[in-house]
């Protein structure tokens, strides 16, 4: 917006976080505060607990099975193993996720994004000036944001993020495309279950079908459907909170430039990034286009 309006000629976007300066209990308290501090965290309902309750209800309602939810982590690690900049560069099996120690049932350690240190950066400028600086630029086609109630329990349905649905709808309109036009997407898998929800809320899959596709490895970079979290996602690339949103865009740029090496999605024209705050109380969606 700043460069499109002419207010600035060039903008450097940076994101950085060093989470390992704090112990894990303190970090979790910070994360808990991104939900409703009084009526959720103040009741002992942790951030992981809220996501676990979403997962429990999804399983109950037949939207996804425990295995399908766990498979999201397997997909992230599959791609993380192909990304030299990922925090965890090792593929894992479904069994590893299912047998990992419980954080908040039904979710285990391997359903949760890790504590990470990291940084990412981008350079933005007006599209017509980009050629002056580089031959391999991409176009920002849409950036949108939507919000919802802070507390999860105040929503009509906890198995969908209304803010993702709203931000995605606007983004597709801005870019003049539909969900079917996207070849590669980075979604906010703070927990495996939010990854599954994102695939449905962004319109890539119908409700009840995202989990099946993930379990069937259809989200891999070389399957031919929309490739999901080719960077390794929050789970395997890492989740240094302040850097995550920028890192998602960096991965899309690599893919759309054709410089994603071993995890390159063929003929990627449009990439989408979805970033979430709290339990979906704020969501941004960005769409980038190859030039």
């Amino acid at each position, binding site marked *: 917006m700043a460069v499109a309006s002419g207010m600035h000629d060039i903008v450097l976007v940076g994101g950085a976080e060093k989470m390992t300066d704090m112990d894990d*209990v303190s970090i979790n308290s910070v994360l808990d505060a991104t939900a409703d501090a009084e009526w959720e965290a*103040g009741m*002992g309902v*942790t951030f992981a*607990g809220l996501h676990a*309750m979403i997962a429990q209800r999804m399983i109950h309602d037949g939207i996804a099975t425990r295995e399908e939810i766990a498979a999201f982590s397997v997909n992230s690690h599959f791609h993380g193993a192909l990304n030299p900049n990922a925090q965890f560069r090792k593929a894992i099996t479904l069994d590893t996720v299912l047998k990992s120690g419980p954080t908040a*049932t039904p979710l285990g350690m391997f359903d949760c994004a890790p504590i990470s240190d990291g940084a990412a950066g981008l350079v933005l400028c007006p599209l017509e000036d980009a050629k002056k600086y580089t031959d391999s630029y991409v176009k920002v086609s849409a950036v949108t944001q939507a919000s919802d109630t802070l507390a999860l329990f105040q929503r009509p349905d906890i198995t969908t993020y209304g803010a993702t649905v709203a931000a995605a709808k606007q983004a597709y309109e801005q870019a003049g495309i539909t969900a079917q036009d996207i070849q590669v997407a980075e979604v906010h898998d703070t927990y495996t279950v939010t990854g599954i929800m994102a695939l449905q809320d962004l319109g890539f899959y119908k409700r009840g079908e995202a989990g099946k596709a993930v379990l069937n490895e259809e989200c891999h970079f070389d399957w031919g459907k929309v490739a999901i979290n080719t960077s390794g996602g929050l789970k395997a690339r890492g989740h240094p909170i302040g850097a995550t949103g920028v890192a998602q865009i960096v991965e899309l740029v690599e893919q759309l430039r054709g410089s994603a090496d071993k995890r390159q999605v063929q003929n990627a024209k449009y990439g989408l990034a979805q970033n979430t705050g709290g339990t979906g109380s704020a969501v941004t969606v960005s769409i980038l286009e190859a030039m």
Partner: protein
Amino acid sequence: MSSVAREWREVPGRYNLKGTKCTNCGTIYFPRRDFCPKCRRAGIGKIEEYDICRTGEVYTFSIVHDAPAMCDMIKPYAVVMVKTDDGVMIAGQLVDVELDKVAIGMRVRAVMRKLSTDGDAGVIRYGYKFVPAE
């Protein structure tokens, strides 16, 4: 965790499940709202105090193993979202229960319990928790 003023304003809700109801459209708000976002202007002056039903059933749940400092002594413990018998959703803990017996649809009722001990002064925060209802 929150300002002193906010703490006191929210005590009636936390102790007695007091919320509000918009008499224009019938929507119940918990925690309380003094303005109905559905009715907007049409709801002004039509918001009444409302006692939320203290019984309901488990809508979803989780057994928390990785606990915050305030709950470290009681882990693992059950957290639930309860749909009260008047249709209001509330998040909280489910106590006095065998953890492997917690299930969606289970009948529960709200009771007042100690939630946490705050800060170095050790001020005890009370509020609702749920227990199994016969």
